[in-house]
C-alpha cells in the first residue's frame, strides 16, 4: 500500500513541474517586467542593476528553480491589474469558490443518488421517464444558459432570490463564510444549483445504470430468495455495490466543478477565484493567471491521488492484482 501511494506521488510530481514550467514561461517570455518597472527615463546602468537585482541575468534553470521555490511558498508577486499580492487576492477569493463548489457537489450527490436509485428500481414509472428527460436537458444545456434561465425565472420574473453576489458574509478569521446567514444561503441557492445540475444528472444516470446492472446479479436474486425485505435488498445489497464507480466519477467530477465554477461565477458575479481568473485572462494579468494555474493543478493532482487511494481501499481486487504487499 505505501509503495502504491509512493508511485502515485512520484507520477504527480512531473505533472506539477510541467504546469510550473508553463506558468514560469508565461512570466519569462510574456511582457517585460523591467520595462514596466523602469518607466520612461533610465540609464543603461540602472537597467542592468534592476535586471541583476531581479535575478533576470541568471541561467534559465536557476530562475525556474527560484520560481518553483517561491511558488511552493505561495509567493507569486503582485497582480499587474490590482497591484496587490497575488497570494492575498486568492486567499480572499478562495472561500467563496470552495463553499460554492462544496454545496454544488453536495446537492449533486444528495439529489442525484436517490433519483438514480428510484429510476433504477422503477424504470417504467412516469416519474422515472420524467427524471430521464430532465437529465437529458441537464446534459445538453450549457452551464451559463442554465444560470441565465434560473435568474430569469427566480430573480427577474418571481423576484424570490438574488441574482448576484454572495449576500451577507461573516468573517471567521481570514475565512469569509456565507453559510451562517439566511441572506448568504439565499444568494447561494441559484449558483449552487447551476453548478451542480450537470453533475447531478451525471450521477443519476450512473447510479441508474449501475443499479440496473447489479439488480440482475445472482446475489440479489439470492437475497430476495432468502426473504429479505426490499429495503435491505435495495439499499444494503444493491446500492452498496454501485458506489465504487460513483465515488470515482464524483471525485473526478469535483475537478470539473472547479473548472465550471469559472462560468457560474461569471453569470452570478460570484466573488470567487473563477471570476478573478477570468478577469485576469481578459486583462492579461499574468501573476494571477500563473497562480491560479498552479493552484488548480495542485487541486486536480490531489483529487486524482485521493480517488486512486479510495479505489484501492474500496476494491479488494486491485490489491490482490498487484501481487500482495
Amino acid at each position, binding site marked *: 500500500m505505501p509503495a502504491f501511494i509512493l508511485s502515485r506521488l512520484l507520477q504527480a510530481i512531473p505533472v506539477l513541474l510541467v504546469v510550473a514550467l508553463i506558468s514560469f514561461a508565461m512570466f519569462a517570455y510574456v511582457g517585460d517586467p523591467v520595462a514596466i518597472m523602469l518607466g520612461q527615463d533610465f540609464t543603461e546602468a540602472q537597467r542592468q542593476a534592476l535586471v541583476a537585482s531581479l535575478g533576470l541575468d541568471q541561467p534559465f534553470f536557476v530562475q525556474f528553480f527560484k520560481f518553483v521555490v517561491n511558488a511552493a511558498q505561495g509567493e507569486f508577486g503582485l497582480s499587474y491589474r490590482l497591484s496587490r499580492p497575488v497570494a492575498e487576492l486568492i486567499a480572499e477569493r478562495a472561500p467563496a469558490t470552495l463553499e460554492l463548489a462544496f454545496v454544488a457537489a453536495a446537492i449533486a450527490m444528495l439529489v442525484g443518488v436517490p433519483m438514480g436509485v428510484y429510476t433504477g428500481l422503477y424504470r417504467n414509472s412516469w416519474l422515472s421517464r420524467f427524471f430521464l428527460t430532465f437529465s437529458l436537458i441537464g446534459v445538453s444545456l450549457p452551464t451559463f*444558459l442554465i444560470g441565465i434561465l434560473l435568474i*430569469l425565472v427566480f430573480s427577474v420574473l418571481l423576484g424570490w432570490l438574488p*441574482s448576484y453576489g454572495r449576500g451577507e458574509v461573516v468573517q471567521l478569521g481570514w475565512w469569509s463564510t456565507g453559510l451562517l446567514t439566511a441572506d448568504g444561503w439565499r444568494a447561494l441557492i441559484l449558483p449552487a444549483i447551476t453548478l451542480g445540475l450537470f453533475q447531478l444528472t451525471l450521477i443519476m444516470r450512473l447510479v441508474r445504470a449501475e443499479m440496473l446492472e447489479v439488480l440482475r446479479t445472482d446475489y440479489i436474486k439470492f437475497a430476495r430468495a432468502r426473504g429479505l425485505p426490499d429495503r435491505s435488498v435495495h439499499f444494503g445489497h444493491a446500492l452498496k455495490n454501485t458506489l465504487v464507480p460513483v465515488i470515482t466519477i464524483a471525485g473526478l467530477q469535483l475537478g470539473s466543478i472547479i473548472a465550471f465554477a*469559472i462560468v457560474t461565477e461569471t453569470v452570478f458575479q460570484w466573488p470567487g477565484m473563477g471570476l478573478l481568473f477570468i478577469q*485576469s485572462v481578459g486583462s492579461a494579468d499574468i501573476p494571477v493567471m500563473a497562480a491560479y494555474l498552479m493552484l488548480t493543478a495542485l487541486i*486536480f493532482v490531489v483529487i486524482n491521488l485521493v480517488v486512486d487511494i479510495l479505489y484501492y481501499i474500496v476494491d479488494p481486487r486491485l490489491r490482490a492484482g498487484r501481487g500482495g504487499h
Partner: protein
Amino acid sequence: MANALSRALDSDLWYSFSRSPVTVVSAVVALVCIMGAVLAPWIAPHNPFDLASLNLMDAFNPPAWTEEGNASFLLGTDDQGRDVLSAIMYGARVSLIVGLSAVVFSTVVGVGLGLLAGYLGGTVDAVLMRVADIQLTFPSILVALLIDGIVRAALPPEAHEAIALYVVVFAIGVSNWPQFARTVRGSTLVERNKEYVLAARVIGLSKLRIMLTHVLPNVLGPVLVIATLNLGFAILAEATLSFLGVGVPPTQPSLGTLIRIGNDFLFSGEWWITLFPGIALVALVLSVNLLGDWLRDALNPRLR
C-alpha cells in the same frame, strides 16, 4: 445517380435512421439550423452588420407576436436596433465555422499523433500518451481557457483582435486532441500486426507510407463518430468562451457573444435578446449530439 440513391435508401444506415423518430427530428432541426446559418446573407430578413440600415428608433422591439411587437422583426431587436433573428443566423455561422474548424483541427492532430504513437511504439508512444494523460486530467474547457489566456497575454491587443478567431479554434482544437489520439492509437496497435501491414513492410514501403496509405484508412471508422460527438462539444466550448468574453471578437458575434450581450438586458425585462440565441444554441447542439449518438449506435455492430 438514381442507382446510387436507391442503394443509399436500401442500406442498413438508412433503415436504422428512418426507424428512429428522435433521430429524424434531430436531423431536421440540425438541417434547419445549418441552412439558416449557411444561407444567412441571402435569406436573413436584415443585415445586422450593415450600420446604414440600423436605426436606434428600432431598439428594444419585443418579438412580433407580443403587443408592442413590430411585424418586420420576428424575434424582436436588441439595444442597437439589430434584428435578433438575423443576428442569430449570422451568429450561428460563426459558431459553426469555429466549431467545425476546431473539430477538424483536433481530428488532424489527434489522428496524426495517435498513428505515430501506435505505429512507432516505444519512447514516442510513451511520451505522447503521457502528455495525453496529463491533459485529460484537466477539463478541456479549462485547457481552452488557459491557451486563450496565454495567447492573449503574449500578443498586443491589436494583433490579438486580428487573429482572435484562429486562437479560439486552436484553443478548442488543442483541448480535445487526446480523445482522437487514444482511439486511433488503440486501433493502430491492432492493425500494425495484421498481415497486410507485414506485407507492406516486406515489400519495403517506408513507415510514413504504410501509416498513411495502409493503416490510416482502416482506423478512421470510430474517428467519424468521435468527430460528430465532438462537434457539439466544440460549439458549446466556443459559446462558453465567448460568453466569458474571451472567445471570438465582438465584431464577429457568435451565439455565445449574443447571449452575453443579451444577458445585460435581462434585468430590465428584455428577455428576448438573450433567450432566442440560447434556444438556437441548444437546438443546434442537442440535435448534433443526438445525431452523433445515433451514428455511434448504428455503426456499432455489437448493438445490432
